[in-house]
């Protein structure tokens, strides 16, 4: 819970399509605001100094590190967090691809990587593996070794371009599906 102080300010923004209007301390980070005041706990904080990318959100369509952004700086903006990716009960194709290719282990880096890749694919719908690696090089994943993330992104890009069935290369058949 944010501690209201005499210096508190009102902020309003749109978070995953919902208008929010809150009174916050000017020093409240956007990551704390989203996590604690908006319930968007899919925003993860891994370093609080702008390096790991776990806290990445989309701010007016562009990635932003919410740990190094103040809530008051996001006034009037439109924010998308990982909670805003899926469509109702349907996973976003990117989420599906990460699932299929084992693009996550502990999942702590995953929300930030999904949003980073969303921006990447918006600008470059058909990236090479090197471009994918470059595109996610601002996000630390301590678990996966990145290869299955790269596979997932390549596969998702194909699906999003509408050119593929998304059979991909990674994980083979799944007897449970």
């Amino acid at each position, binding site marked *: 819970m*944010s501690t209201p102080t005499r210096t508190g300010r009102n902020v309003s923004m749109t978070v995953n399509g919902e208008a929010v209007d809150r009174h916050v301390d000017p020093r409240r980070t956007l990551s704390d605001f989203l996590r604690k005041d908006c319930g968007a706990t899919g925003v993860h904080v891994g370093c609080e100094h702008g390096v790991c990318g776990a806290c990445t959100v989309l701010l007016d369509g562009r990635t932003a590190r919410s740990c190094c952004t103040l809530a008051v700086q996001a006034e009037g903006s439109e924010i998308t967090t990982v909670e805003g990716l899926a469509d109702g009960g349907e996973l976003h194709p990117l989420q599906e691809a990460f*699932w299929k290719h084992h693009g996550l282990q502990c999942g702590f880096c995953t929300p930030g990587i999904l949003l980073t890749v969303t921006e990447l694919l918006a600008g470059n719908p058909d990236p090479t593996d090197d471009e994918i690696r470059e595109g996610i090089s601002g996000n630390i994943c*301590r678990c996966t070794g990145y*290869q299955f993330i790269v596979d997932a992104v390549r596969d998702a890009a194909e699906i999003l371009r509408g050119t593929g069935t998304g059979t991909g290369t990674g994980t083979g058949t799944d007897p449970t599906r």
Partner: protein
Amino acid sequence: MTSQQLPPGLIGARTRRKEDPRLLTGRAQFVDDVVLPGMLEAAVLRSPHPHARISSIDISAALTVPGVFAVLTGHEVRDACATPQPVVWRMIPDQRMTDQYALAVDKVRYVGQPVAVVAATDRYVAEDALGHIEVEYEVLDPVVTLDDALAADAPLLYEDWPDNVSCRQTIPKGDAATAFAEADVVVTETLTYGRQMGAPLETRGAVMSWDPFTDHLECWMSTQSPNLTRDLLGEVLGLPVDHIRVRTPHVGGGFGNKFDFYAEEVLAALLSKRTGRPVKIIEDRLESFVANAHSREQRIEVSVAAKADGTITGMRGTVWAVLGGQLATVGIGPCWLSMALMAGPYDIPNVEATVVGVVTNRSPYGSYRGWGQPKANFAHERIIEKLAHELGLPANDVRRRNLIPADKFPYPSQVFYYDSGNYADCLDMAENAVAERGWRKRCDAASNEGRALGVGYSFHIEISALGPSKIMNQAGLQHSSFDEEVVRIDSAGGVTVRTGLSAMGQGIETALAQVAAHTLGVPLDSVTVLHGDTQTNPFTGYGTGASRGAALGGGALLRASTRLRDKVLRIAGHVLEASPDDLEIADGVISVKGAPGGPSITMRDIGDAAYRRLDGKLPDGEDPTLEERDVLDPDNVAFSYGTTAVLVEVDRETGRVDVLDYLLVHDCGTVINPMIVDGQLHGGATQGIGGALYEEIVYSPEGQPLTTTFMDYLIPTATEIPRFETLHMTTTADHIPGGFKGMGEAGTIGAASAITAAIEDALPDLTLHLARLPVSPPRLLDAIDVATASKENS
């Protein structure tokens, strides 16, 4: 060698993970997502000095900060605790213990040691209040390095000790002295492994809620070892364990850092007791670099005695463990293991290895994926390379000559019995794969263009499935190491597995579900795995570490599920009027074998017969309900193993090393989910690459840590990491039901050895001598300079 063959099915299938939809949508709960009514947040004041006496602490100003509820100092914590912070690995009986409390009492021994703690309305206010605590220190000379600590006139960290040595132990096998006296050749090496840590992306944290009326403690913790933590909280806080409930939500990576038991959980509990409110404590990243257990740092002296043909007859080694200012939970454990496994995969008849634990003014030394094994590996693989160079033989020929032959298993090493393996086949497979992929040709082609590429190998073993409890107790473990699993079919035929293991990204939920579904013959979707609550889930000794989860949890669950399946078949036989032996279960339907379209009954019917409408369906003498539990305390640990081959490019001008290709040939017995195994190998190898080339916790000569952000401590990103290729062999562990061996640490163990060998191979005109990790560009340039100078002088 016998081998356990499981029929094809869900064990061995690349199924998607059950845990992923939660994690992909932001719905998974991590510890910092736990919010309780009235909850306070805590922050820790940490020592700015490596070595100092605390003269006084004044907390009065901090207590007046609006929103502050409590401030604790060392004396209060000591008085509130029944014991000092515990050390669970006590391998060396006469080891000097450090016996410290969650807050420093009179003296600080490393930068970052907790000195006071504040609970306030939120973390912002708690951090404000830290600035109002006045501590006066009498600064003492720091003991920063191993040599500082061992110097004759070194300041003492513990004034009642004669020196800074906490322990020393030698374990011999055979007669090393004779082997060295009779050797054709002796080679010796001194290696330095840099200080590193697991650095999971989610930092450590806890939420503690102490009920002052009943003295019950509810805990939410990001931990790998929930049962051990509960027992240790009971010991330290003087509470009966039935008053303590430890819940582990999703754990955002552990890598050993979250195996250990830390001060912060004790502090949050005491603050909750003091304030009557729940207290959350979440470590920030800067703190994590001083408050998490450090690992890896050692100086290792190793020598081998050999015949002219490369047969190793003897090995000697000393592991100098650069411990921190106090012992962490695992004490000398990891460094002791480096000593105990120094001979690695080699059949060396005479070994004499020593470990010496030395305290310094650095953060405590604890668990990190691989434990002592990356260092042991670096020792045996570096010395193999050096011996091969000395004898003018290919290093893999020397490996092959000394690898333990398949017919010598179970093999008695210095300390352990290695259970099974086909080591030579594994090395052959890697060499063949490298030849097929044309790495050598790529090196030659690059060399014609003036570029320097090289190939390096390493062979690793990995202790897993830890382990027989009584033997571990005899080895000094103050806890058990069995695993208990429970499986239940409910009244509608759904399956619930209960486990004490923690889900920390390794996919244990999916792996256990696969074992249960495979054994019971039900769809994977019908299995739910519950974990993360000591009150409702079974007991796992030790914790989710030492590559034991899949092997012991899987083995116990396989046995429990097999018995449950038998009961299902008895009920089905009764209903279908058939012998249970004639029945089979597929996809949740029980029918007569070889009679398609014949009478059948579903798992839902069986559930109904065992819980609801028993009459006429449940055989007489059969208890209602469908539940089995099993405890696996194996007769022995298991040893996985593998060969790593890497292709690197070295830039002679800058000292930069690029890993171009990476191949792992691996054997971990029966594989439950190959996709998960590959993911573990990739992730482990990535940490190994980090440790070989980039990651090091650096201290200034004054004892100040210089690497306290991700800008200084360099974790590899996607652009530093190559594609990996994995090839698998299966040699089952026949003392583990299912034949599983663990493999969670495998990737980390052999990486640095293979990479250093590859760098040396890339510069064949120089006799490069890489003895220090990580091989950072300046270090490599230095080594190139030294080698160039010695070439010019010769």
